[in-house]
C-alpha cells in the first residue's frame, strides 16, 4: 500500500501506488497477445513495482465479472468467464479472400447492373463457372433483378444492400467511374490509341444505371 515503503532496494523514485500498478497490469495483460509472466510484468513496469501484488488485487476485482484473470502456467491472462462461452461463436469465423473470378464478376455486376450472365461473360472474356454466381448469391452480395426483355428473357443480376454495407457504399452509384479510377491511380494504363478517354468512361457510366440519363 502507498503508505508502506516499497520493498525494492535501489529505486531512486518511489514506486507508483498499488492502484496505479493494478491499472498497469490490467492494461498490459489486456493488450498482450499472449499470457505474460510476472517477471515480464515487473520488467515492463516502472522500478519498484510489485506485479504479483497488483495481480492479486486485479484478480479480486475481476471475480465474477464477464472476463476473469487466469493463470496459464507461469503466466497470466484475461479469459472469458466459462459460463459466457456461448457468446463467442461469432469470433471464430474464418475469413477468406474472394477468388479473382468472383471479385471480377462482382465488380462487373456492381458497375453494370442489371447485367445478364452472357454480358458478364462478354466483358470478362471467359465463361462463368456455376460456382461463382452461386457463391455471390450465397454471400447475399448479389440477387436476381428483372428479366431482360430480349429473346430468351435472361435473368439479370444486381447487387444487394448487404453488398453496399460490406463495401461501405451508400449506393452503387457512388462507385468511382473509370475516369476517377484513373485519376486516383487505380487504373494505370493509358487508353488504346484512337479511343477517347471520355468515351470509355461515359460509355461505362451510361450503361451502368438505367435511370441516370
Amino acid at each position, binding site marked *: 500500500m502507498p503508505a508502506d515503503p516499497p520493498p525494492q532496494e535501489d529505486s531512486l523514485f518511489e514506486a507508483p501506488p498499488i492502484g496505479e500498478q493494478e491499472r498497469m497490469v490490467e492494461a498490459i495483460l489486456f493488450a498482450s497477445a499472449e499470457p505474460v509472466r510476472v517477471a515480464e510484468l515487473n520488467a515492463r513496469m516502472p522500478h519498484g513495482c510489485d506485479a504479483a501484488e497488483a495481480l492479486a488485487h486485479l484478480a479480486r476485482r475481476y471475480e465474477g465479472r464477464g472476463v476473469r484473470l487466469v493463470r496459464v502456467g507461469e503466466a497470466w491472462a484475461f479469459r472469458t468467464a466459462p459460463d459466457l462461452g456461448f457468446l463467442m461463436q461469432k469470433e471464430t469465423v474464418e475469413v477468406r479472400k*474472394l477468388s479473382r473470378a468472383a471479385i471480377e464478376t462482382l465488380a462487373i455486376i456492381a458497375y453494370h447492373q442489371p447485367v445478364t450472365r452472357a454480358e458478364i461473360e462478354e466483358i470478362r472474356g471467359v465463361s462463368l463457372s456455376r460456382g461463382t454466381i452461386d457463391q455471390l448469391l450465397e454471400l447475399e452480395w448479389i440477387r436476381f433483378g428483372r428479366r431482360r426483355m430480349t429473346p430468351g428473357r435472361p435473368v439479370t443480376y444486381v447487387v444487394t444492400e448487404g453488398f453496399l454495407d460490406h463495401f461501405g457504399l451508400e449506393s452503387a452509384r457512388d462507385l468511382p467511374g473509370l475516369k476517377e479510377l484513373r485519376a486516383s491511380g487505380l487504373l494505370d494504363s493509358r487508353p488504346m490509341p484512337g479511343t477517347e478517354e471520355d468515351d470509355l468512361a461515359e460509355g461505362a457510366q451510361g450503361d451502368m444505371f438505367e435511370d441516370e440519363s
Partner: protein
Amino acid sequence: MDEDAFDEVAAHDPVSARRAAEALIVDVDGYEGPLDMLLTLARGQKVDLRRISVLQMAEQYLAFIEQAKALRIELAADYLVMAAWLAFLKSRLLLPPDPAQDGPSGEELAAHLAFQLERLEAMRAASARLMARDQRGRDFFVRGLTEDVTRIRKVSYTATLLDLMQAYARIRTRDDFRPYIMDRESVYTMEDALERMRAMIGYAGDWVELSGWLPEGWQLDPVRRRAATAAHFAASLELVKQGVLDIRQGDMFAPIHIRKRTR
C-alpha cells in the same frame, strides 16, 4: 524559409529582400503549391490573417516570380497562373473601379483570397491537432488476445472496396491492350485432330506417314499445313499415351510414321 527575412522585406531593406527572395527560390520545392507560398508570405506580415495587406503580399509574390524568371528557374505552371491572377487582382485594387465593368471588385477578390489563406491555415492547424491526438497502436491499444472459444468454424469470404475497383480496372484495361484477334481460319486444334484420327485409326494397320493424314485443304498453304501438322502430331502423342497408336521417327527431321497398335 526564415520568417525573420520577411519582416525585413516588410521594412524595405533591399539586401534582405533579395536574400528573402533567394531563400524562397531555394526552397520552392518545399512549398505545397502557390497558396502555401502565399500563406508563408502572409504570415511574414505578423498580423491576423483577416487584416493582412493582400496588395503587399501580391507584390512580394510577383517580385519572387520575376526573380525566378531572371534566374531562369523553371516554375510549375500553377505558380505562373497564380502570378497572372495576382497581377489582375493588383490592377483591380490599384485602379479606380470602372462603373462600366461588371464582375467582382478588387476588394471582394482580395477578401476571398484572405479567406482561402485563413481556411488553409485553419486546416493545417486542424491536421496538426488531429495527429497530436492519442492514436490507436501508439498511445492506446486494442485487445491482444482475441478469444476463440467454440470450434464452430464458419467460412466468411471477404474483399475490400479496393479489390473490387482494382478488379474492375483490370477488366476494363485488358480490353485496351488486347493484342490482336486471332485468325481462327488457319487454326487446327488438337481436339479436332484427335477426333479426326480416332475416326480413321482403324485404317492405319501398317506404318503410314503422318503428313499423309492431313485433311483436305490443309496440305498446301504453309500456315495451314503447319497448324494441321502440329495438331495431328500432338494428337498422335495423345493417342500413343492412350495406347492405341505406335509412333516412330527414323532419324532427325525424318518423316514421322504412325500405325495402329496391335495387342
